[in-house]
């Protein structure tokens, strides 16, 4: 169970994808998203922990929350 109370605008399921697949799937969705949208990225790859946070630091997008409560990671990214 997660206690994150964020309703994503869109969900990107990148489970089973190898790096940089999950981040690239997220970036692809960010390209077509509107400012303020929240995209939930699902990934089961540990490298996503660094990839996603590094990329949002590099851009104006924001990592609102990281859900580590299940078998997979859930990244809630707000589009700048």
């Amino acid at each position, binding site marked *: 169970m997660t206690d994150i109370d964020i309703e994503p605008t869109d969900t990107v399921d990148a489970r089973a994808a190898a790096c940089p697949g999950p*981040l690239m799937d997220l970036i692809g969705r960010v*390209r077509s998203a509107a400012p303020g949208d929240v995209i939930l990225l699902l990934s089961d790859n540990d*490298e996503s922990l660094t990839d996603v946070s590094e990329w949002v630091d*590099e851009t104006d997008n924001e990592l609102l929350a990281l859900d580590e409560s299940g078998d997979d990671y859930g990244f809630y990214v707000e589009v700048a």
Partner: protein
Amino acid sequence: MVDRIAILGGGTGGTVLANDLADRLAAEIDAGDVEVTLINDGPDHVYKPVWLYVPFGQREPADGRRPLRELVDSRVDVVVDRVTGIDTDARELALRDGPGPLAYDHLVVATGSTLAPAEVPGLAEGGHDYYSESGAVALREELLSMTAGHLVLSVVGTPHMCPAAPLEFVFMADDWFRERGLREDVDITYTYPIGRVHGNANIAEWARPLMDERDIGVETFFNVEAVDPDAGTIASMEGTELDYDLLVGVPPHRGVDVVAEADLGDRGWVDVDKHTLEAERAEGVYAIGDAATTGVPNAGSVAHYQAGVVARRIASEVRGRPATATYDGKTLCFVETGMDAASFVEFDYENPPSPAPPSEKLHWSKLAYNEAYWLTARGLL
């Protein structure tokens, strides 16, 4: 009742699989109990790794082509036609030129990758590539005439064929210009979409110091937004812009339309169980090589190993036994680090790569494998 096995695509995966099945099921095929059909949209089998060497004048495109019928066991029915529809409920393939639908009991999708440069504005007009035969030939002309300026190698899309090839290209270009006494007049920059130079962290940590030693510029977090061929610039969504004199782009890739239309997965890739290689959205369908979303690199060695697994699974199914063969993610790659040195990596789902120190011996091993590849396609190696 004849068991009909259809293989869609005559690249490495499809060809190795066809020959493996012909060998494994020879008795059943000879008895008329099994039919194996390989459908390809052209008469030739193409060994794409040759294209890396074409721009440097070391290979000709013809070195990577052989007639498919020469490579495939005579027990296999080779059909040169384009599949225009996959009906996974009726288990039929629609053919563009064929007399009617082709029915199957077991289907293996081995349709590989296609290039989609049009997804990025200006890339098709402004960029060159070595991921197609025509692209490699055109790039050769550009490289041969380049004596000074800025060469930019940009990894625009991932996943793409041979994840090591962009690194190989800049290492080879660096060495090639040095040998010709031009390196001081040619700047080389490599761009990658994420915060390191390769998707795999181990390979990235190995490659980055080599790039720094050789004065190969690096731009990470570079997700290409657009190319302006007139201005000679390439811009990223992160806000970086580079001027180029010669742009070598690794374009976005996708699968084939017929797979997308059959709803076997997204962008023409087939969603599969990464161990059994069975399609997740249809019964009686497998996918191998680039067409299968297993998360491992789009590489010939992957297609080769996966073909062996699927051959064993289908043979078991034909014989009414449980299919137990599984794919463990095994991948082998030689990685050129110059014109006369190469590294080697081997990894699987559980064990990460550990690149070998570059050596001349490994370079010659890679060239020897390229020559011996035709034995692989025939199922002999």
